């Protein structure tokens, strides 16, 4: 199986900001992204959990975005501009993907 080098960008962001981030990512040229639910967590702003919440305000969402290496900088700049003032975490991992034409 031939695999291709790519970057796995994982962004944990406040749910009310998610659509802004993903819209910006798409504009920045990513071919896709995946949203994962987040149950809770803890950071400098203390612990939180989604249990029983009705409002979207308190929660976070994970945005997973696999991109070609050459797009990484654009993607990170975009992400940073949006998460800058917000709580949240951005991490990047090297990965291999099948079907490189998709990215």
């Amino acid at each position, binding site marked *: 199986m031939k695999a291709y080098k790519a970057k796995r960008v994982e962004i944990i962001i*406040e749910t009310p*900001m998610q659509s802004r981030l993903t819209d910006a990512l798409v504009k920045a040229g990513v071919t896709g992204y995946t949203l994962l639910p987040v149950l809770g967590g803890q950071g400098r702003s203390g612990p939180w959990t989604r*249990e029983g919440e009705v409002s979207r*305000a308190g929660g976070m969402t994970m945005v997973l975005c696999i991109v070609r290496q050459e797009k990484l900088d654009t993607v990170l700049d975009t992400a940073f501009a949006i998460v800058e003032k*917000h709580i949240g975490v951005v991490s990047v991992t090297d990965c291999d993907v099948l079907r490189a034409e998709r990215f």
Partner: protein
Amino acid sequence: MVDILQLATANLVSPVILCFALGLVAALARSDLSVPEAAAKALSIYLLFAIGFKGGVSVAGYGLDGTLILTLLLGIALSAVLPLIAFYLLQVLSGLDRLNAAAVAGHYGSISIVTFVAATSVLEKYGIASEGYMVAVAAIMEAPAILSALWLVSRGSDSSARMDATLWREILLNGSIVLLVGSFLIGMATGEDGLKEIESFIVSPFKGVLCLFMLDMGLLAGRSLAKSRKSISIGLLAFGVLMPLIGASIALPLGFALGLSSGGTVLLMVLSASASYIAVPAAMRVALPEADPGVYLTLSLGVTFPFNLTLGIPLYVAAANFLFS
């Protein structure tokens, strides 16, 4: 006075309040009792649908009286102006910086629909009628306060409030407004016939569902108190109790002057007295990300909500009773 005390006591031993208390205690004792997020959302959809629908049916029955437009306008005005008062009061009572003060103020101009629902069922219990369209007033009061809050921030030099078209759409078309207004219109369109079809879903079990929702509200309030106790000073606490009283005091004469019924006036007081904990926090996370949710959520959910639920509502009922009789 006896009247108020009686009302307050009777109010306090109702299943609705006690369920809230149970949730609060469970959360403070760090029990793992919790309502799944999906279930809490489903309960809130049910409550919004039922309250909107019944409001609409009642308008269909009694017709729209002339005060509707005026009350809507009054609602907008209250929602826009109350944050200014709240902002001022916060600066007097607490050392909160401009940004956080504005964010908190925005919550108090907007409304808490569960407080509204709880007040409705207190009114029902005492057989006090109210205008069905107060539901529409509730819906219209959700958003203007957000604008006022952002305006308050933008006046400061270090303005960082961000308001874009997307945020506008999100606020005005947020799920709870759409559902409330939508079911209000459905109730108006289908009237008593429609109500008869779904009565045993939205009327009879209503209070029981409210109990479970209050259990969840108690859990949330308790959790937010446990987490952010430290960020709530005595000054802020005083604000959380004073501000609803001020809001209600302003709404009382205005409702009376406008010719609202005594029940309608109570609901207007409740809307003015209550603070948002769903729509406004979400908007603030986008527009004022640097403001601390620990402050505004804890005040709104952990202080003002329980205050209104337990003491506020009976007080407002008693005050309106006094003025109207």
